[in-house]
Structure formats: structure tokens, C-alpha cells
């Protein structure tokens, strides 16, 4: 099985600070994982953990002042350091992205159908009518009833769920090898969320697309993902098959995150909390970034932990608990 996305030691730093006191915010730090074609890989973490920055780095959407090191290969082609022209060639073609807010990712003045057709014509040599035909087929595929009726509608005439379907149709227009979905359902109600997730699930099977699904919601992860990566303060702390992650969370942060969900332990008076705050990423942090809040901290944590394999899981921790959930 070939990897549609392979990250190796990907790091992203944002220059910041005042003149005479330059600093670098280390937003992503040495992240490595692969996503196979036809697989949904969930990337979960809290705000500021670097999950969206990671996605933007892969798509080449970060400002030019950003310092990116390491490697990101999409369908066996390196994408870090590509020229603008090469990035444009990649975006919407081999790799496509779906953002959280469908109402701002569509041009409000354009008919929605034309926006899909536009994406097709940008990468394929087809006539206008062929592009329109393909767009209509895509609209049917993402479950819009009456596509020819909807084709000429402006985005504001559609509901939030329909708009997100249009965005997904546009993303899939050129059969990308990789689809990155950044919080695609966060703005939607639960019933719509379930529908959109089912749609993404169905499409990746039909097109054999690799999906990188970025979310803060462990429920979304549980619903559709095959494997999961957990990020904390820019570092990937655990990668595991989804069932394994929920049944046997290994990293102390993963455990804390799972325990903090309401309903995690039924009938519990109080929810488990994580003491302390996420560290300031513009400061130099040696070793494991979770150490300052970790109940299992030992001296070795001052050195960045190596990833170790435990069954199907890979965990970056020096002091792994043995056995199941505490």
C-alpha cells in the first residue's frame, strides 16, 4: 500500500517578537506519520496544538516568512519548498482542502455550480459544457438533490449543510490523492455533522482518497476515522488505530483528554481535568512539552521522548503506564 501522505520530521516555526528580541514560535515540532490511500487519518488536539498549521504547511498556505523543515510527501512528491507555480498545480489537483466555514470558502457572488466547474477547468483541459457536466455529476455524488436546479444558485441561497457539500464537491473535482478536511463539521449541527461525516466516509471509498481529518472533537474521530494522531503543543504524542486509542490510550495526555469528556465516566460527579496551562511555544522547551502538566513526569522527560511501538500504537513517552486505562 502506498502512502498518499508521508510526513517526516515536519516542523513549523513562526518568527515573532520585537526588534532586538526575535523569537520563533515552534507551532509544529518534528511530526511524522503516513496516511494510506483510502484511509481516514484523524488528527486531534486542542486549540493551538498546531494541527491546522500542519495542514496549511502541507498545502503551502503559510506566509513566506515561516520556517518549515522536514519533509511532507503527497503521493510520493515532496511539497515542502515547492515554488508558487508548483503549489498551484498541486492544490485542488493532487491535494485538496476543505475548511471549517463553508460560507466563507465559497465566493458569495458566484453561482455554486460554476465554482466547482472553475476548479475542474483550472486543472483539466475540458470545454465549458464538459466542466459543467462534471460539476453536475459531482453535485449529485455529494447528495444534493436537484443539482441542475441548484447549479446557478448563489451560496447564500443554500443551507450550511448544502454549502459544505458544495465545498466538498469542489475539493473532489480533480480526484485528489489527498483530501485535508480542517474541522469540516464544527460549524454544523449534530444531525448535519453526522451526514457530512458519512459523506466523507463514502467518498473516500469511492475515490480511494486519503483523508486527513483535523478536529478537536473526539466524537468525530470515533465516528469515521481509521487511525488517529494526537497532538499536544506542536508535538505528535500518540498514533494508534482508532479502536486501540479509545480502548487503550497510552500517552498521559491522550488519557487525560479522553477522561475530560463529559460522559467519559458515567455518573461521575466531577470530570477529570488537566492541571496547568499549555506552555508558551515561543520559549525554548526542552524535551516533552506535556511534562509540566504530566502526572507521570520523570527526570528523563527533559529529553524529547522517542516514539516507541506498543502493539499497533506508537507513543512518544518515557514513562508509559502499563496495562489498560487507569
Amino acid at each position: 500500500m502506498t502512502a498518499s501522505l508521508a510526513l517526516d520530521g515536519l516542523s513549523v516555526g513562526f518568527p515573532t517578537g520585537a526588534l532586538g528580541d526575535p523569537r520563533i514560535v515552534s507551532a509544529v515540532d518534528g511530526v511524522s506519520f503516513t496516511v494510506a490511500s483510502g484511509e481516514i487519518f484523524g488528527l486531534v488536539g486542542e486549540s493551538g496544538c498546531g494541527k491546522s498549521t500542519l495542514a496549511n504547511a502541507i498545502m503551502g498556505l503559510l506566509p513566506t516568512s515561516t520556517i518549515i523543515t522536514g519533509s511532507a510527501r503527497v503521493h510520493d512528491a515532496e511539497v515542502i519548498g515547492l515554488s508558487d507555480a508548483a503549489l498551484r498545480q498541486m492544490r485542488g489537483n493532487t491535494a485538496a482542502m476543505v475548511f471549517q466555514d463553508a460560507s466563507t470558502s465559497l465566493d458569495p457572488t458566484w453561482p455554486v455550480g460554476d465554482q466547482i466547474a472553475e476548479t475542474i477547468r483550472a486543472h483539466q483541459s475540458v470545454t465549458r459544457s464538459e466542466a459543467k457536466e462534471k460539476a453536475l455529476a459531482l453535485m449529485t455524488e455529494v447528495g444534493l438533490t436537484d443539482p441542475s436546479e441548484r447549479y446557478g444558485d448563489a451560496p447564500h441561497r443554500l443551507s450550511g449543510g448544502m454549502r459544505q457539500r458544495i465545498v466538498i464537491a469542489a475539493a473532489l473535482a480533480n480526484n485528489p490523492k489527498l483530501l485535508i478536511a480542517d474541522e469540516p463539521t464544527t460549524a454544523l449541527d449534530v444531525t448535519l455533522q453526522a451526514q457530512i461525516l458519512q459523506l466523507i466516509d463514502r467518498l473516500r471509498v469511492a475515490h480511494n482518497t486519503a483523508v486527513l481529518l483535523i478536529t478537536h472533537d473526539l466524537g468525530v474521530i470515533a465516528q469515521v476515522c481509521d487511525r488517529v494522531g494526537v497532538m499536544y503543543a506542536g508535538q505528535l504524542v500518540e498514533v494508534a488505530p482508532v479502536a486501540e486509542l479509545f480502548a487503550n490510550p497510552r500517552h498521559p495526555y491522550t488519557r487525560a483528554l479522553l477522561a475530560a469528556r463529559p460522559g467519559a465516566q458515567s455518573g461521575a460527579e466531577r470530570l477529570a481535568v488537566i492541571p496547568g496551562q499549555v506552555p508558551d511555544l515561543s520559549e525554548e522547551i526542552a524535551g516533552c512539552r506535556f511534562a509540566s502538566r504530566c502526572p507521570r513526569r520523570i527526570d528523563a522527560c527533559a529529553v524529547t521522548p522517542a516514539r516507541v511501538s506498543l502493539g499497533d500504537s506508537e507513543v512518544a513517552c518515557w514513562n508509559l503506564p502499563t496495562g489498560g486505562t487507569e
Partner: protein
Amino acid sequence: MTALLEVDGLTKTFAAGGPPWRRRFVHALTEVSFALEAGRTLGVVGESGSGKSTLGRCLLALSTPDAGSIRFDGADLGSLSRSGLADFRRRVQPVFQDPYASLDPRWSVGRSVREALDVFRIGSTLDREQRVRELFDRVGLNPELAERMPRQLSGGQRQRVGIAAALATEPQLIVADEPVSALDVSVQAQILNLFRDLQRDLGVAAVFITHDLSVVEHISHDIAVMHLGRLVEFGRASEVLARPQHPYTRSLLAAVPPAIPTRTHPHN
């Protein structure tokens, strides 16, 4: 025992654009009735457009219903005198969703907490300062943070400040509109714990408006399910969640993401 809050036949309609002769209307609330006893927490659940936020605004007397009545401690909100309304405002306090928008960016967070005390001229200046320190302590914040500006605090800390501000006048009812939905899971857990503590220690009643059923389950004694402006189901939380009667409640429960993975055969 009489209820602390009695809502009866509450109806509210908004004009939703269109020319005057063909104006379209949104029925935000239609004939909503329920009662809440002192010290209990009611979870109001619904999706966007269900009218749950309009209900919250009516309960805070920020919005006037077109029909129906809200009785707080036996007194009808619609017929309150000026001083009666002031008294109501002191006893019913809001907590809002967005910890970034619910504090004046130009005010120190301590001043925001003190606002209600200043408005109602409760105690001397010194008493108020003392009370603000107590309130910060009460919600688990270091009182020294009172001098800081909102932008210097994290989202979770701001929401604690918002709760401290709501507690300043020792209210009997708190109306909280999505107070944890903008927060990360681990921060959300801290705020939900705080709400549990307040329920237990202060006996304050709460209307907790949210779209998140797992939050409601954790925090509420009673649940009201809203759909398109109507209250479709009301009852004890355990009862409603275990045996939902209305089809909409059932579909809502079915759509909730699972707590553990549902996929038995991962795709290869």
C-alpha cells in the same frame, strides 16, 4: 412548592426580511411552557434555529415575548415596575458563550466582576473590592488576576471571570447560553466542574442552554428539548435520555457522536 421560574405559552416572532407587503416571519418561540424549581438545573437542548437562544434572552428580560408569561418567584416579568425589574436583574444573572466577547476589552476583569455591585451600589467601595477577591477565589482564579485585561487571560480563565461576574449579586437563577461550547475539552471539563460546585455549594438554579447532549447529561436535573421554536420534550434528565418520547429527541440522540469508535472493521 411553587416553582422559582414558570414559563407559560411563551411566543416570539421575528420579521425575517422581505418587502413590507410580503414580509416573512420566523417563529422563534411557539407556546413554550415549563417550570423550574429553586436550586435545580434545566438543560435546554436544540440545534441552531431551535429558538433556545431567544428563550434565554427572554428569560434575561433582554427580549420581550409577543405572548405568554414568565413568572419569576411568583411575579410576572411583563408587569414588573422599574424597581421590580432592577430586583429581578439582581436575582437573575447571565453567563455567555464567547469568553472573548463577554468581557469589555477596555475594562480590567476585576472591574467587569464588580460592575453589578457598582450598578446596585452594594456595599462600600472597600466591601466591593473584598467581594471581588472572594468571587475570584470562588471560581478558582487567583485574586491578583483581577487587575489584568481580558486579553491577558486564557479562554478558560475568562469564562471563570464571566461566572464570577454572574455570581456577584448572589443570584437565585443563572441563565447560561452555551457557556462551554467555545472551550477546549480539557478547559470545558474545568468549567463544568465549577458549575457542579456552584450547584452544590450555593444552591443556585440554572438554565443551561447548549447544543451538546453530553454536556446536558452531565450537568442537568431536567431537560427541555427544543425544535423549530417548540418545546418538544421536557422531563427528568435521566428519563429523557434513557427513554426519549419525541421522534426529534430520538434523532438528536442518534446523531450524537459515539463516545467510543463504532467502526468494527477499519477500512484497508
